[in-house]
């Protein structure tokens, strides 16, 4: 049984848990003993979304629902998509997005789920030849939400898909992206950033399958955890037989700011093709004490010095966002979280 069915049928015993290899650091079955009742329909007003001002089209899904979004061939759009959970309860939402040949889409997606929700969203994103999509996901769920997002991206040759997932965690939070990469000069960037405090958890899982020759993938995820928070990064790149001359780079770098915080990382490359250039780097550590002392010797108080060095650490991910307006929204969001 899949996750959507388990939630829809309130079958807690079928939720994925630590015995499922892919979910062992994001145990839902052990956490959710009884699935909550379905979320009630929502009738009230919502405050404006973080990206509303930047978008020329808006779509809001509250407590479930479906959306079908079509960007015609050659068109250009900036779409704000909000996945909102109001009040306790369980629900599933879905969105099907088709981007026509040579079209351009900036997808500004937010997750805003209340405490007590158990929610999943499934997205399918099909990117036609020569089209370019930048997807920015800002997940700012309530600390007591169980919030899942699963996206399946299918690229065509010569398409470009760039993604940045930003997460502040929840009781359990998982943001999963699976990409079918056809090669053929299609370009993929998959970035992520998690900034976690208190007892929050966040899981960024990606699977990229290179099915054809001459594909490019670059991936950079960074994370900062403090208090008793837990960050999870699972990145898998599969280069299938025949996907020769694939060029793939994966990086994950975590910063642990307290003794009781934790980061679990599993970078994986599976290569069945020839003449490929694949690399991954993974580091997890603390702030550099010497750099901290240096900053303090120049008069910067300890908290400010920590924030400055931490912002510098994560800044690289933010700088890679193409859409200027979204980049500045994200930069401010990051600064707020790090200086809180």
């Amino acid at each position: 049984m899949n996750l959507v069915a388990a939630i829809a049928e309130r079958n807690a015993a079928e939720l994925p848990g630590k015995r499922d290899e892919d979910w062992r650091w994001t145990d839902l079955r052990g956490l959710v003993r009884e699935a909550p009742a379905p979320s009630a329909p929502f009738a009230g007003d919502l405050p404006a979304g973080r990206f509303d001002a930047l978008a020329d089209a808006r779509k809001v899904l509250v407590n479930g629902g479906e959306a079908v979004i079509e960007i015609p061939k050659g068109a250009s759009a900036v779409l704000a998509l909000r996945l909102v959970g109001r009040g306790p309860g369980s629900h599933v939402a879905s969105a099907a997005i088709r981007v026509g040949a040579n079209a351009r889409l900036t997808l500004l997606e937010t997750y805003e789920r209340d405490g007590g929700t158990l929610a999943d969203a499934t997205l399918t994103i099909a990117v036609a030849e020569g089209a370019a999509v930048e997807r920015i996901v800002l997940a700012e769920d309530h600390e007591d939400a169980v919030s899942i997002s699963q996206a399946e991206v299918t690229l065509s040759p010569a398409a470009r898909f760039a993604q940045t997932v930003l997460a502040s965690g929840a009781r359990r939070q998982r943001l999963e992206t699976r990409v079918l990469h056809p090669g053929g000069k299609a370009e993929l960037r998959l970035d992520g950033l998690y900034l976690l405090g208190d007892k929050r958890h966040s899981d960024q899982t990606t699977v990229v399958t290179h099915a054809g020759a001459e594909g490019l993938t670059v991936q950079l995820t960074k994370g900062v955890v403090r208090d008793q928070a837990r960050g999870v990064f699972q990145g898998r790149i599969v280069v299938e037989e025949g996907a020769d001359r694939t060029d793939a780079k994966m990086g994950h770098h975590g910063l642990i700011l307290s003794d009781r915080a934790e980061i679990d990382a599993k970078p994986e490359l599976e290569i069945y093709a020839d003449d490929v250039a694949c690399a991954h780097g993974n580091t997890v550590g603390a702030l550099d004490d010497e750099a901290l002392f240096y900053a303090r010797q120049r008069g910067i108080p300890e908290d400010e010095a920590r924030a400055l060095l931490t912002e510098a650490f994560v800044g690289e991910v933010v700088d890679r966002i193409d859409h200027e307006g979204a980049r500045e929204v994200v930069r401010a969001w990051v600064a707020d979280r790090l200086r809180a």
Partner: protein
Amino acid sequence: MLKVENLHAAVDGKEILKGLSLEVPAGEVHAIMGPNGAGKSTLSYVLTGRDGYEVTGGSATLDGEDLLALAPDERAARGVFLSFQYPLEIPGVPALTFIRTALNAQRRARGEGEISAPEFLKLARTKSAELKIDFEMLKRALNVGFSGGEKKRMEILQMAMLSPRFLILDETDSGLDIDALRIVSEGVNALRSPDRAMLVITHYQRLLDYIKPDRVHVLAGGRIVASGGPELALELEKAGYERYEAAA
């Protein structure tokens, strides 16, 4: 200005400073010379409050205020500046951002207003020109990929912009060629004034040809074992530290 009395300090439980006493009045430049392992860098870190340098006895005051009770950033705001022997690389933080953050933090701590952006940029342009630092370099991450000489020049630039009252130069000449040494020394000498004092820590006499000290102290075995005028440095250059190491 600076008054150090019978200072004892340990690193990892091992005593490095063993009763060091020193007075540097305002307006003067004092040199501390000594063999490797004498405690020269320890002294600079104890005065600036680095973690892991434990004071086990004695005192250090700046204009009568107990330095040792203050956090590193509070000491900086009171005007204590250390030019590091090995300046740190700060990835992701442009030099200009770092210096402006430091300057404004110090000004806030002293109850002064923050410096305006145009005023700050003007100051940065003037001071970097004086030190022959390409202004474009200040837009890059501080010290990342800089040569040894460039890092030392960035230290002096920060010093010039932060305008401290008590300056500690820890082996500032190491890694500098003659031209860079001259530029750095001119930068330091420009900061000499009746209300500032400096402590120049060096292994070699060479730097003191450029930054002329009023007094020279020999640090050996964790204590000051001899003090004299500038001629003491020349004597050391000839005779070496051997007889002081024996005395320590």
